Structure formats: structure tokens, C-alpha cells
């Protein structure tokens, strides 16, 4: 980010390189997840409802619970960003901590869900729906893991106080990514848990 000094009145944009870069990254991510969702939707439509039987075995209550966890973590993430904008360091650290905990909670619930499904005999080889279920939630889960790691590294920096004064804007970028992962889940949840 050494060149950020050149943002000047000659630029057509007021967006700093970091945020611009994150948005381009998210655009490519939209196409990756978009491709996944497209394949899933097309297969689901082609199956003509034959998947409903399989889809009946996922637990909508657990899915709903996990959705609430993720929505709340998005809230705390954006609150952390707000706190940073308002120079409230302690508050920002706390909100980051809650975000990380909620992210881990999501993963924990997901792991419980996986293990109970596998215990019932539903593995990725139990049919196309299950293959999609594990592929989609697995890829999303990997994104969550990446997000948790990134958020946790910011949390450590915030606790040590090294987040300021040069790197606090990373909370905003991490937030953008985190909200994007949340949006993906907003679509995965009805696709996998509700539409049987």
C-alpha cells in the first residue's frame, strides 16, 4: 500500500486502493459462489422434486439457529468498524472478540450438524443432494474459517494495541469479506434447508 499517496483530485474515484481491491475480490467471489449456486439450482430444477426426500433430513431448526449466529456476527463486525471510526478502541476490541466467538460457534454448530448427519448415514456419497450439501456448506465453511483466522489476527493486534494507528482500516476490509460470507449463507440457507 506504499502508493496510496497518489490518490488526488485527478482521480475519478474517491475509493482507496484497499477497499477497491476488496470489492474486486468480492466480485470474483460472487462468480465462484454464483457458479456453485447455478449448478445446484439447475440440478435441483432438473431433479423435479426427487431431492425433496433427501432434503427432508437436514435440520431446519439448526440451520435457522446458525443463520441467526451469522447475522449477529455480521452485526458485531460492523459495530466494531463503527467503533473504530469513532476512535473507541476498547469497544472495537470487544466487538471483534464477539465476532470471532460467533464465527467459531457457527463452525461448532456446523460440525455438530455434520457429525449427526454422518451418524445417520448421510455422507457425500448418499446422493446428489448430499454431495451438493457437503460441497456447498464445506466451501462456505472454509470461507468462514478464513474469515475467523483473519478476524482473530486483527483481534490479537487490537488487544496488543498494534492495530492503531496504521492498520485499523483492515477491520473494514475484513468486515466486507465477512458480510459477503454472510450473504452467501443467506442464500444457502433457503436453498439447502427450506425449499423441500
Amino acid at each position, binding site marked *: *500500500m506504499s502508493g*496510496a499517496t497518489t*490518490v488526488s483530485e485527478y482521480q*475519478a*474515484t*474517491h*475509493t*482507496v486502493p*484497499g*477497499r*477497491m481491491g476488496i*470489492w*474486486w475480490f*468480492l*466480485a*470474483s467471489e*460472487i*462468480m465462484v459462489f*454464483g*457458479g456453485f*449456486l*447455478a449448478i445446484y*439450482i*439447475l*440440478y435441483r*430444477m*432438473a431433479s423435479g422434486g426427487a431431492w425433496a426426500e433427501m432434503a427432508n433430513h437436514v435440520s*431446519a431448526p439448526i440451520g*435457522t439457529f446458525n*443463520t*441467526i449466529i451469522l*447475522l*449477529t456476527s*455480521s*452485526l458485531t*463486525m*460492523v*459495530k466494531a468498524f*463503527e467503533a473504530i*471510526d469513532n476512535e473507541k478502541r476498547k469497544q472495537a476490541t470487544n466487538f471483534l472478540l464477539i465476532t470471532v466467538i460467533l464465527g467459531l460457534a457457527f463452525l461448532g454448530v456446523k460440525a455438530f450438524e455434520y457429525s449427526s448427519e454422518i451418524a445417520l448415514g448421510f455422507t457425500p456419497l448418499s446422493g446428489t443432494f448430499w454431495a451438493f450439501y457437503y460441497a456447498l456448506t464445506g466451501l462456505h465453511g472454509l470461507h468462514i474459517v478464513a474469515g475467523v483466522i483473519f478476524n482473530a489476527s486483527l483481534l490479537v493486534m487490537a488487544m496488543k494495541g498494534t492495530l492503531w494507528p*496504521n492498520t485499523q*482500516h483492515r477491520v*473494514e476490509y475484513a*468486515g*466486507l469479506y465477512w*458480510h*459477503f460470507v*454472510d*450473504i452467501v449463507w*443467506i*442464500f444457502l*440457507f*433457503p436453498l439447502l434447508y*427450506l*425449499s423441500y
Partner: protein
Amino acid sequence: MTDTKHAHPNYIVIWAWLVFLLAISVVAVYLPFSQWITVTFIFVVAAVKAVIVAMYFMHLKFEESLVRYIAIIPVLLFIIMTLSLIPDTVYNR
């Protein structure tokens, strides 16, 4: 680094809306409407939720138009791709 101070809406209200929308889409599944109505409804709700998250949590509402294009064009492209694959992948197999 942050060049402009962001406007920060009341995030808790937005979160409450999101949870409310989540609740009605879960409830809708158990209501005795036809499958098509239910499916359409829950996906419209999901889209609304996604837009709310993007607009407020991701500040798209306060960004310049270029950033909005970066976000919207892939979504449109995804929709175009899915729709144009329906005749072959869904009905031609």
C-alpha cells in the same frame, strides 16, 4: 487511510429486520401455500436480506457508483448464465 467518514446507520435496527425476515421465511415453509408460492416467497425474502446486508453492513448505499457496478454486474451475469442454461440443463436431459 479511511478517506471519508462513513455514515453509520443504526445497525441494531437493521439486524432486527434481518432476523424478522429470517423468521417469516422459516414460518412460511409451514404455511399451507402451494410450493411455487412458498419457494418464490422465501427467495424474494433472501434477496431482500442480501440487499439489506450489502447496502448497510457493506455500505454499498454510501459508496460511489463504480463500486456498486462492481458488485451488481457479477450478480446480473450469474442470473443471465443461470437463466440461459435452464433450457438445456433442466429440460433437455
